[in-house]
């Protein structure tokens, strides 16, 4: 569902803006996916993803 939603959104830039403003229905996504999506869309410009590990073990 998330994949399809993003593929549809990138074809409609206005929908990304609406998502950023919390105006888009994210039906079909789980709660955690919704949280992740909203956070990523709103923080994309600032580039503030969690740094997570820097380890390269078998990665």
């Amino acid at each position: 569902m998330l994949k399809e939603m993003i593929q549809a959104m990138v074809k409609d830039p206005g929908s990304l803006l609406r998502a950023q403003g919390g105006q888009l229905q994210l039906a079909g996504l789980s709660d955690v996916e919704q949280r992740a999506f909203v956070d990523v869309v709103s923080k994309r410009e600032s580039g503030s993803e969690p740094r997570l590990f820097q380890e390269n073990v078998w990665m």
Partner: protein
Amino acid sequence: MGHMNQNRGDTMAGLAERLGQEMRESLAAYFVLPRLQEMAQACLEEKLQESLLFGKMTVLHYRMFAGEDERIYRAAAAVELMVLSLDMIDDVQDKDNKSVVWNGYAPEITLNLALGMLMIAQRLLLEGGFDPERARQSARLLSMQVLTAVHGQTLDLLNEIPDEEAYLDMVSQKSAALLVCACMIGTMLATGEWMEQVRGYAEQLGIAAQIKNDIRDLANWDNKNDFLNRKRTLPTLFLLQAVTDEDRWILDYFEGRLTMEDVLHRRDELEAIMEKTGTMLYSSVRMRTHYYRFLDLLGELNLDVGWQEEMLALAE
């Protein structure tokens, strides 16, 4: 569930130094041949420039669950030696040319060193002074998780990842299993029990970290770039099914109909396509989804706030 060990500050301070000391002493004790010792210690000094996050996770989990024995540092050193050994083996397998000490040795030497370190890790757990049953459990867990990682690494090396589900399965085995190992060894040495909640959140955090690495390995246009290496990862799998006929060259390259020389100059074009297809957006959301699952599962343990903060500091 609440945990009453309040000695967080004393426990975590100087941890890297303590781990380093344990690791140096273990190599000195078990690698008798001078040249072997010398090369192993050189590899270790390289490793000690890193964050030692796995060993720190072992200690953190031990203390979180009220463990008080100072010998946990030896167990954490075992975890880090295991991680180092697999790191070295991975670099040989990937023919990675990053400038680390072990990449300057002949591959057969590096593999031999790694094999020895892995065995030392087992001995440290078995002979580290913990209750025999818990020592046995922790050593068993180490070998079990390394074996899982071997399976995952096999899938990765074969690069036969048909879809996202297979990718997540591979990542769970290849990468997340080692983080599960680190967290669970600390947990089991403290409690004598397997805690499924710990396994659960450690796995989610490991998956998130791997997706993060895979995003990076698509964004960096160097010899590790996953597109150039035709690696099937979550971002590249999304890209491949999202490209239009107009950008068919991407599929053509991935399927071998174009050479690297045909595409090396098309970096900007690829980046634009990744943006317009939503590849990076999708990958970032997936990474963060797994990270939030980690946070939610961690929250369910109802740990003391201080321990949660320690955990988040390591994870961030």
